[in-house]
């Protein structure tokens, strides 16, 4: 299963990644972080096909998808 990495120092919670994901593998976090941002979290990473659209469209270079081996 692919793994989602969010750099919490860089992410500003615009949630573009949640919207553009074609498989809807991400969702907005229910919690607000210490900076006041709502970060994206994993919803169902089994659906992730690692197309990389979230990485391409991220304005803050905060998201990365680690491909599962094999």
């Amino acid at each position, binding site marked *: 299963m692919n793994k989602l990495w969010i750099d919490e120092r860089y992410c500003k919670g*615009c949630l573009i990644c949640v919207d553009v994901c074609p498989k809807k593998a991400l969702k907005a976090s229910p919690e607000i972080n210490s900076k006041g941002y709502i970060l994206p979290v994993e919803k169902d990473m089994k659906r992730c096909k690692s197309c990389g659209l979230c990485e391409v469209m991220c*304005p803050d270079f905060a998201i990365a998808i680690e491909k599962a081996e094999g």
Partner: protein
Amino acid sequence: MKRHPMLKYLKEEGPLGPRMPLIFCPGCGSGQVLNYTLHAVDKLIEEDEVRRENFLFISGIGCSGRITSHYLNFDSAWTIHGRALAVATGALLANPAFKIVVFTGDGDTGSIGGNHFIHACRRNIDVTILCLNNGLYGMTGGQHAPTTPIGTITTTTPYRNREAAFDLCKLAEIAGASYVARWTTAHPQQVIKSIMKGLRKKGTAFIEILSQCPVHEKKTPVDLLKGFRRNTIRISKSKESTDGKTLIGEFCDLDRREWNESYQEIIDQFVMENDKIDE
């Protein structure tokens, strides 16, 4: 921990401490355009078409001006308002091997730098101009710009804008640019392909990227991107009517003579004459 693949091209640490996160507001289109540009540049570097030290990034003033020298781990220059293209012309004349990318905003290109812009297109200098058009002056407080569409509310047009907007793509096309295209931040793959095409093109490549300003347009970035997808139409699909939508796509793709090549002829001519005198 895996990190974003394009962070290898950015300066995360500076002499005065960390430079990241980017200065832009949450969901700003400038960060997205930077990301698309780095993807295009990364592909060219990996295909060994252009060497990393041959890239030069130049920007003017405005939100778009903050992209280059603050964050990019390439040769870059942060120049005066509207004059990024003048600096690019000088850099190109000094070193024709440079692959120059100019980041400008709509105020930078359309208003204060308008003359530099049309004359750069007229000379057809070998630069790739990326114009981040958000339709207002974002950094100074959301005032109306020459590119603000009719009927938009901004801080200086509270009763809606009455002036017609500038069509920068048509201006570039008529002024003589080799390659003209318009996309939005909601079209990532098209923007990346267009930037690669522009960098490969000899001559001026003008790519206007409609970008969102969530702070002054007072909407969420996700809604603004959906609006871009809804309110734009491809040139190929708009033969009968545009339905009042904004045209996107490639406006022209010509092979015109590049400015530096014509100058090289004069230089060669003088070199030949000098050789004759020496004999």
